[in-house]
């Protein structure tokens, strides 16, 4: 590859990188009770089909892409098309098969149920 071709290739790569979406971490609230862990994440403008939730090997990854529907010339802009992405460590006691998610008003609500074995139990004391 001659020098000119190399520079052209590098410039193309830079342009490609600029077209990539910026990745930001969504803000989250996390709650827990005896049965489950709840995670609420703000992802405004992301539709259901653009969200993915993966639980694997003790890692929970949530991600989503936002493509804004614009009309006209922008006068000012404070937010952009973005990719939301965040990874959490989750306890191995989560029952992965029962994880469920809902999306409401731009907030992703994840229910992470605990496995039966991890739930608190009351031990009955027998009389001797």
């Amino acid at each position: 590859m001659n020098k000119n071709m190399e520079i052209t290739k590098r410039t193309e790569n830079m342009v490609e990188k600029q077209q990539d979406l910026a990745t930001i971490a969504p803000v989250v609230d996390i709650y827990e009770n005896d049965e489950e862990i709840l995670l609420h994440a703000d992802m405004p403008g992301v539709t259901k089909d653009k969200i993915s939730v993966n639980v694997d090997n003790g890692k929970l990854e949530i991600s989503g892409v936002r493509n804004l529907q614009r009309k006209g010339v922008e006068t000012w802009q404070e937010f952009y098309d973005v990719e939301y992405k965040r990874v959490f460590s989750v306890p191995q006691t989560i029952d992965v098969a029962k994880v469920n998610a809902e999306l409401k008003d731009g907030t992703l609500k994840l229910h992470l149920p605990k496995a039966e074995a991890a739930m608190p139990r009351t031990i009955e004391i027998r009389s001797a």
Partner: protein
Amino acid sequence: MWTRMNDIDRMFSAMDLLRSINSDRSYGESSGWRVAGGFPKTNMYDNGDSFQMIAEVPGVNKEDLNIRIQGNYLEISGTRKSDAPEGYKTHRVERNLSTFTRSFTLAADVDADKIDAVLKDGLLTLVLPKAESAKPKQITIN
């Protein structure tokens, strides 16, 4: 050599400024993440005959939003209420609750009767048709 506190303050101010420019959300002195530059973040587009405004309002219900318009003065206000479930322990809170108001002076008067407001997926989209007198006009040259 002694360094005056003013110099240290100035250095931290510059760091805060850089952080707010380079990241969408900056980590504040208070616990949790805060949105730099006010809430809600808004975008504005001019479509010739109308303006389109989009505001990020995740977790805010329709009933908790107010929109007021007078001439070219637009005000969006609302409250973001807690959605913390009862009986749960809280491990982390980054989604701040707030009562907010943002006001804007638009570049032209709008027709208040024809404004369309839609709240979907945590985004409030307003279409604000310009008043007849403010719309662009084609001038025919005789």
